[in-house]
């Protein structure tokens, strides 16, 4: 995956396949309430799409689409979303992560507020898992030396 090996069939198929994988991962995330799925599973599928990009094309393509600075921001953003929802419930007068109190600012009853609170935290989990898995893969594949690999 370091040097580009030009193969027309694989490149064309993967160029069609990667957007569908990303949409499928969002489908798995949102349908976590009604079928097996959720944040962890969707995050892994989303990360697999970037890994496929790195395998089929150059490593430079994967880093162009998802640079290291963006990666670092996404890693922390997921944990921040999760904790921010918990803090919001604390500020509104309940316990930490007590989603029923979110009905004071959202126009739903307390039971559906728990439904939407769960959807929000699963989004945070998906973002973190996706960013971390891509980061671990890129670091292990290049032995940490991203710049030497990109110079080739």
């Amino acid at each position, binding site marked *: 995956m370091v040097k580009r090996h030009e193969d027309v069939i694989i490149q064309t198929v993967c160029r069609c396949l990667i957007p569908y994988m990303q949409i499928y991962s969002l489908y798995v995330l949102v349908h*976590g*309430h*009604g*079928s*097996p*799925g*959720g944040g962890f599973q969707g995050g892994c599928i989303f990360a697999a799409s970037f890994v496929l990009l790195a395998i089929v094309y150059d490593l430079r393509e994967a880093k162009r689409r998802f640079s290291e600075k963006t990666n670092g921001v996404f*890693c*922390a953003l*997921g*944990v921040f979303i*999760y*904790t921010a929802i*918990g803090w919001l419930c604390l500020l509104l007068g309940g316990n*930490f*992560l007590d*989603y029923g109190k979110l009905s004071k600012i959202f126009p739903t009853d307390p*039971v*559906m507020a*728990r*439904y939407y*609170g*769960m959807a929000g*935290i*699963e989004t*945070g*989990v998906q973002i*973190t*898992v996706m*960013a*971390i898995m891509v*980061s*671990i893969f890129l*670091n*292990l594949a290049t*032995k*940490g030396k*991203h710049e030497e690999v990109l110079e080739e």
Partner: protein
Amino acid sequence: MIKKIVSIVIAIFATSALLVGLEDLPKWADPKQPASIHVSPGYIEKSLEETGVPNIVTAVLADYRGYDTMFETAVIFTAGIAVIMLLRRSKNGKKA
């Protein structure tokens, strides 16, 4: 060679210790095993009317045990940072 023989002996000893405890374990898919009669009927019966989510596994993971999932996410975050700290060094030997 001696290491492999000692390892096999220890592994067989541990296996037999586990097999002795096998008669106390419940039968597979027994409806009356202790894991299925104390806490989990409460979760199954009350999860739909309290949270409105049909998937009981997601309801338990994200609502009743939300704390565990939060620290779970922190564990993944820490693992990613640990890999970055171990592997990313610049050419001079200083940390990147």
